[in-house]
């Protein structure tokens, strides 16, 4: 197992990892420098115009929403927002780049510094570590190349290549971390937490599958206690959190084995092959470009006033850490439940919506249903909470039916399944199915009498001290009443009658 091997390697070596995370601002209606719509897929080269195709004479006009979204992202991770910033041109030739330069940022990014505190591991081995962020800048995404004739769409062996410029010019945020990460798990936790924050801000759909969030990593190894950095390799094509973890793990092992066997790491870009479970060399840094950055003359520099920055800050929503703390401190959830609910934007929004309908007193009961019945249902159906028939109002109603004694907790499970299947309200389901819990002491007494008459030897046994038979009587009584008896009352009456 790679996991064990990694643990072994990390006893002798320290890994040093820095991440570069590109996130498309998919919430922007338009591209970074033109009015074309932003979106995934579509017929090739249909969402294009003279500007994002880089036709002769076309000029870029910055998308103010995307600038604000980047600043919002910076504020969320406590970056310093530049008071004066500008775009630069990054010059290099590649067919997916219409102008053969990318409008990006160089020495004056919108956001400088920042950090995230990341929880790693569970239980006794759990710890928190701070990962510092170097910067966040804004740039335009490139088009997409489709290589034809080679294996798996890769360029090696291809006979020709096609370019789709639909993605070209999509606003793209690039976050760079300091080399503060020491394990693949820390890297994964950082990326997951960052994604959650971006989702809370509503700036991107952060789909790693569709490439709207892309994580590249720089990784090197050194002996524990050393302060010099080793030669790093850049790993690309890690298209999921799992791939990020596994790609890094394999690369760390590869580097360690290479050095231990007398070799040395060369600075290069490596491609994570999820099928083969290995990284392979994409290009060496000897071919590295001189990007010839210079200030983008087609746009005037940005000057951000303190007032404007504060106005953006005022738009910051509740962030995941604060949300989790609120769930524990104000709503009394366990740390575990709060962590799960706050780790998913849709789940926490659902929960908060239920809270606003049903009130904080129902927090534990609602969380309980969500993390058990609802989670199981979503899992079975393989749907997201947004696609579920169950609404927050329905859960509140369900909890009210239990609290009010109308149905038992056991019945609630049946009602949940029914409402998940039909979308009917819990009240209607209880009505239709005649599931009302019987709290009529007379009816319960009659049922118990019938049970006791039918089981004289058990009655005798109980009275002779075999009190564990109480469960038997409860079960029989419930059966007698087709599960609709109030179990609390059944207990009370049984204890009285048997005693």
């Amino acid at each position, binding site marked *: 197992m790679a996991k064990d091997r990694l643990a072994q390697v990390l006893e002798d070596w320290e890994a040093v990892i820095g991440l570069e995370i590109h996130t498309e601002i998919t919430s922007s209606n338009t591209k970074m420098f033109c009015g074309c719509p932003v979106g995934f897929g579509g017929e090739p080269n249909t969402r294009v115009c*003279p500007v994002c*195709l*880089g*036709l*002769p*004479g*076309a*000029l*870029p*006009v*910055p998308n103010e929403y995307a600038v604000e979204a980047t600043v919002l992202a910076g504020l969320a991770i406590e970056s310093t927002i530049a008071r004066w910033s500008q775009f630069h*041109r990054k*010059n290099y*030739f590649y*067919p997916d780049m*219409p*102008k*053969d*330069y990318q409008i990006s940022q160089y020495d004056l990014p919108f956001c400088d510094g920042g950090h995230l505190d990341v929880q790693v591991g569970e239980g006794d081995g759990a710890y928190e570590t701070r990962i510092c962020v170097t910067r966040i800048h804004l740039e335009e995404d490139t088009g997409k190349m489709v290589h034809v004739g080679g294996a798996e769409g890769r360029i090696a062996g291809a006979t020709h*290549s096609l*370019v789709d410029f639909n993605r070209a010019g999509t606003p793209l945020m690039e976050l760079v971390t300091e080399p503060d990460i020491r394990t693949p798990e820390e890297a994964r936790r950082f990326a997951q937490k960052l994604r959650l924050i971006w989702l809370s801000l509503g700036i991107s759909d952060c789909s790693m599958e569709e490439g709207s969030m892309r994580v590249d990593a720089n990784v090197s190894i050194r002996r524990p206690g050393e302060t010099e950095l080793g030669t790093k390799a850049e790993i690309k094509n890690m298209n999921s959190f799992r791939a990020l973890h596994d790609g890094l793990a394999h690369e760390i092992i590869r580097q360690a084995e290479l050095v231990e066997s007398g070799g040395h790491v060369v600075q290069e870009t490596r491609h994570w092959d999820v099928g083969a479970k290995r990284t392979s060399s994409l290009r060496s840094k000897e071919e590295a470009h*001189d990007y*010839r*950055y*210079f200030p983008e*003359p*087609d*746009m*005037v520099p940005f000057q951000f006033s303190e007032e404007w920055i504060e106005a953006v800050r005022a738009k910051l929503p509740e962030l995941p850490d604060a949300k989790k703390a609120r769930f524990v401190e104000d709503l009394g959830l366990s740390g575990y439940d709060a962590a799960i609910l706050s780790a998913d934007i849709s789940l926490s929004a659902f929960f908060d919506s239920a809270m606003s309908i049903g009130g904080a007193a129902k927090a534990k009961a609602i969380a309980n249903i969500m993390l058990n019945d609802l989670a199981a249902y979503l899992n079975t159906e393989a749907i997201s909470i947004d696609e579920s028939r169950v609404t927050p109002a329905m859960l509140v109603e369900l909890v009210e039916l239990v609290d009010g004694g109308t149905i038992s907790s056991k019945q609630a499970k049946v009602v949940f399944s029914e409402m998940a299947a039909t979308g009917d309200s819990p009240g209607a389901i209880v009505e239709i199915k005649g599931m009302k819990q019987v709290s009529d002491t007379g009816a319960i007494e009659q049922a118990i009498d019938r049970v006791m008459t039918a089981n004289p030897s058990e009655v005798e046994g109980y009275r002779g001290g075999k009190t564990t038979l109480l469960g038997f009587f409860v079960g029989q009584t419930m059966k007698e009443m087709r599960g609709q008896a109030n179990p609390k009352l059944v207990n009370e009456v049984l204890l009285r009658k048997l005693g």
Partner: protein
Amino acid sequence: MSEFDVSRLTGAHIREGVVTGQFTAREVAEATLARVEALEPTVHAFNQVTPELALEAADAVDSSRAQAIADGLDPRDVLGALAGVPAGIKDNMNLVGTRTTCSAKILENYESVYDCTAVRRLLDAGAVPIGKCNMDEFAFGSSTENSAFGPTHNPWDLERVPGGSSGGSAACVSASMATISLGSDTGGSIRQPGALTGTVAVKPTYGRVSRYGCVAFGSSLDQIGPFARTVEDSAAALAAIAGADPMDATSAQQAVPNYVRAAAEGATGGAKGLRVGIVTDLLQADGCSGEVRAAVENAARIYADLGAEVGEVTLPASAHGLSAYYIIGPAEASSNLARFDGIRYGHRVEDPTDVLDLYMRSRAEGFGPESIRRIMLGTYALSAGYYEAYYGQAQKARTLIKQDFESAFKDFDVLLTPTSPTVAFKIGEKSADPLEMYLSDVYTIPVNLAGIPAISVPAGLCPSSGLPIGLQIMADYFAEETMFMAAAAFEAAIEFDARPPLRYESARGTRAAQEERR
């Protein structure tokens, strides 16, 4: 065939004639196209003549006049400010229905798919597009000899260059193959050919006119501007194309003043109280011909006679103008021209072995020598390790040049220099020595680096050669009104006839000559 001589008509005359029904826009267009047919073979001002677009535009003007009358409206209020005025368009500005070649092989067959804002505005004002004008390839040059499609000839002397890079735009107006035209000016590419062809040529304040749709050379320097045979026409043309454009983030938000009125005030009111500074250090520079210097000194005397307060000023940092310009311009150009790579449009090499081969050979085949020189210069200047020493220093020089102007405009309303150090030179005379050619723009370049507006107006003919000399009048940021006022006052005082003698017509026995005789 039309009865009248379009060379005697200014844009203002044409609009007036069309408005009052003295003649139709179609008649003007036809007469102009006939003149193009006659003169173009010897002048070669155009890369493409667009008779269909011209007649369509002219007919549109005529029918809106008819409609206005039918609706009981005064055509004067309905027709655009340039109604019926024939216009040439530099071949680096996009116009649907035309090729936009930049006089480069790499874009030889490039068809525009959208309109340049300035061109659109010109045509919306009623101008009639006659054709796309020849230029130095990608606007790199001062003679139009760098065109991949052959040089343009100066209508004043066909053996000579019309200047450049907007040589075709200047020559077509000079030869009355168009009444106005658009050029672009990065380091003097409107004003210098204006001077060499005896036309009025305007480089507006950076940001005054949208650059959208004009193929970029030096993005921080480029500005579109008009050519005309009178200051009034140039003012009307600038008024039509100026103003903020949501498609150009560097276009200025300022309202566009009434430039035509400013020109009229200058023409009638003289220059009383105008503070005119003659830039002595530039005027005394080596390389400036004595006759050019004398013409500028004479201009200063004329201003004094017109009631201006004439003084002297120096712009010492402008000595670094040429060096700074030949860093910043090529640096930006090297990046702007990267997109011409044979991938999406333009010239692509046959049978490339791989993408790198495709890039390298397409570009090597598609670019002319001067483009390659500028791309290499710019690439070098931006390279790691050289950036600060070149680009960084050039930007510092640029700041100093700006500060010189800012301080000069505290004391003066306008500044005078020659536009070009010499009159039009012979074709081939400077093409062997790029540095010699670069010196042609020594007076115009500081203006682009600072971003201020300037106009070149004819200052008379050179006594020895009989060729036009241009006076450059520079004004403060967005002070085009002052600039037009000063230019119109001078123009009125010297009574220059901007029409070349067309000596070549009889000499060459062209159809034009036959036409003249008829």
